[in-house]
């Protein structure tokens, strides 16, 4: 066997096998995430079918500008993440570091804007629970809508925080010279995770923010 790369694990015959196995493993994990968020989406779709009015009312109280900005921010972070993987493939260390940092920055911007939105909702008494106040016959359904809003965006934000942690770990590894054209699997695999979190938002945005803007 040729001289093994320091990252070559003993259970694999070749580095190629290790790369294929690692990426397949991340895809398998993303399938579990599809089902995880899928449960939330299924519940939402059931209720929005029967409580269209209340859910539309709730949706209209979300800030469409902030939501759209956040969508664009996250799409941008997917671009920078793809560029990071690209840099890793070419062995361009400094570019890799820069794109990872940009991705992290955009992710933090997203979380910041989310935080602003949450605080708005808190002040408008739209957080479900004893402090919820909404002047309308549809108040209970609106509270149901906001239960989904916080559960779904909260879960998504949690996943973004994990993603941010992964990006920091990658940046440390890059600085230590861990990645090269022969071995950049962690970058690729983190990229898959990050893009997936972006895709969840691609569905969350119209689902929550655009329910009935035309009414």
């Amino acid at each position: 066997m040729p001289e093994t790369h320091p990252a070559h694990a003993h259970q694999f015959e070749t580095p190629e096998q290790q790369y294929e196995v690692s990426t397949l493993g991340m895809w398998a994990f993303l399938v579990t995430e599809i089902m995880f968020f899928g449960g939330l989406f299924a519940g939402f779709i059931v209720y929005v079918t029967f409580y269209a009015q209340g859910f539309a009312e709730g949706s209209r109280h979300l800030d469409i500008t902030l939501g759209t900005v956040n969508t664009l921010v996250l799409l941008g972070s997917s671009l920078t993440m793809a560029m990071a993987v690209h840099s890793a493939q070419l062995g361009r260390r400094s570019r890799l570091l820069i794109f990872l940092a940009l991705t992290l920055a955009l992710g933090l911007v997203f979380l910041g804007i989310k935080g602003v939105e949450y605080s708005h909702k808190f002040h408008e008494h739209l957080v479900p629970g004893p402090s919820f106040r909404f002047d309308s016959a549809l108040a209970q359904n609106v509270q149901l809508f906001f239960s989904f809003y916080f559960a779904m965006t909260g879960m998504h934000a949690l996943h973004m925080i994990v993603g941010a942690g992964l990006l920091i770990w990658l940046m440390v590894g890059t600085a230590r010279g861990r990645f090269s054209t022969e071995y950049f699997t962690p970058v690729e695999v983190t990229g898959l995770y990050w893009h997936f979190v972006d895709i969840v938002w691609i569905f969350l945005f119209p689902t929550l923010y655009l329910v009935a803007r035309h009414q």
Partner: protein
Amino acid sequence: MSTEPAAEHPNYLTVSHTVRSWLLTRDHKRIALLYLISISGFFILGGILAGLIRLELLTPQGDLLLSENYNKVFTLHGVIMIFFFLIPSIPAVLGNFLVPIMIGARDLAFPKINLLSWYIYTLGGIFTIVAAVTGGVDTGWTFYTPYSSIYANTNVVLTAVGVFISGFSSILTGLNFIVTIHKMRAPGLTWMRLPLFIWAHYATSIIMLLGTPVVAITILLVGLERALHIGIFDPALGGDPLLFQHLFWFYSHPAVYIMILPGMGVISELITCFSRKRIFGYQFVAASSLAIAAVGFLVWGHHMFVSSQSVYAGMIFSFLSFLVAIPSAVKVFNWTATMYKGSISLRTPMLYAFGFIGLFTIGGLTGLFLSALAVDVHVTDTYFVVAHFHYIMVGGAIMAYMGGLHFWWPKITGRMFSEVWGRIAAIVLFVGFNLTFFPQFILGFLGMPRRYHMYPPEFQVLNVLSTAGASILGLGYLLPAFYLLWSLWFGAKAGNNPWGAAGLEWETPSPPPVENFERTPVVTEEAYAYDKPQPHAVPEASRA
């Protein structure tokens, strides 16, 4: 690998003795043993709780436990047995140990994640035990809303967290198996040459990956509702408790296939070895595992026939539930056909296999009773259901687990157990099991509801029989604990292949070396090639 002569090579047990080398191991074989210890502990706990239930039900009055505490006991019995014993058992112990060896690999695809899954499992268990000793939970293992989300005063959130965490252990194990089986098979080991044990674990892993996340989010939502008033299931807000039931059973029905499929994989190995014959209809048995995994996701509404679910949805679920029985029946027919004109030897693992086939068939057929809408209206939430699932889970899954444990014991430990005591225990288990659970079919049909600690006096005789059976069943589990542990110090040393079985795991020493094989094996023939002459054709004589 090493080309030294076969002197004293360390095996995976002797290579290192420190506690650290066990708790930080990446060796799938050691991780399997860590799981064996943990799940055995949980089994004892769950068994004690079962004992309390049966003790209470000796008399018609609720005189041993208050109703609230009885509710906590059966809830905990269910949670522990399902999430912390049955779901991990065969995959995490036998699967972890054998999957890499059976496919000729040095380890699973992700050894560190394998170790992580054990720690996650342990953490989930700790949460659940803490929840139990600090007040318990009384919602039933099914956590139905709105009781669990709004009205219960017990440790719902703590238990939910424990179960949620353990779900990740399951997901990681399934992920590891699927990727390993796809990408790390030895040269020449095509899909159609795989042992059926591998097919069964592959199908199980599919269910673990696709189902567990849904129950994870569902339990999380119950916890959020209790803790943060995010009321998805709250009727006051327009929430529908049935949404919880749909999401819960979407996983929990396929979960029962997680619990039985690996057992079916074990039985295929046992029947072929102890009939010294190729499996009848290999492709059908392999395909049936996948069919059970797939169709098993389409039947969950049969748990909700009387819940106010739409009658038309009920009809669809009923029809699909009849369909899902077909692949299971295929397996039973093929095992039977394998035994026909085979050279049967009644060794201990084979006794367990026989027990499985009979008891699983009864359990499966009673499942069809329950799939019929009209019958289910009569027997749902009675002891008929309790008997049905115990026939499958105890008469089926646990018998398969015991059979597998005995079959691969020499490979795992390098020791043979006492064959005489093995057979005695298997028979004691079989008798005790039937005495415990057959009366429950009758009780259920007569109308005794489940989850009640008091009942009309006319049901007492059957309950007493059941409790008597439970004590014999307990003995049936205690005996192997003794003679298996005894064998670790005093049992005869086992060679590579004490049973004369076919399979890659029998071509490596007992216990195996750390890297499983001296050289990566190359596979040239199909599984269960018992009709071909083999160097290891004659099984070792057993020592009583």
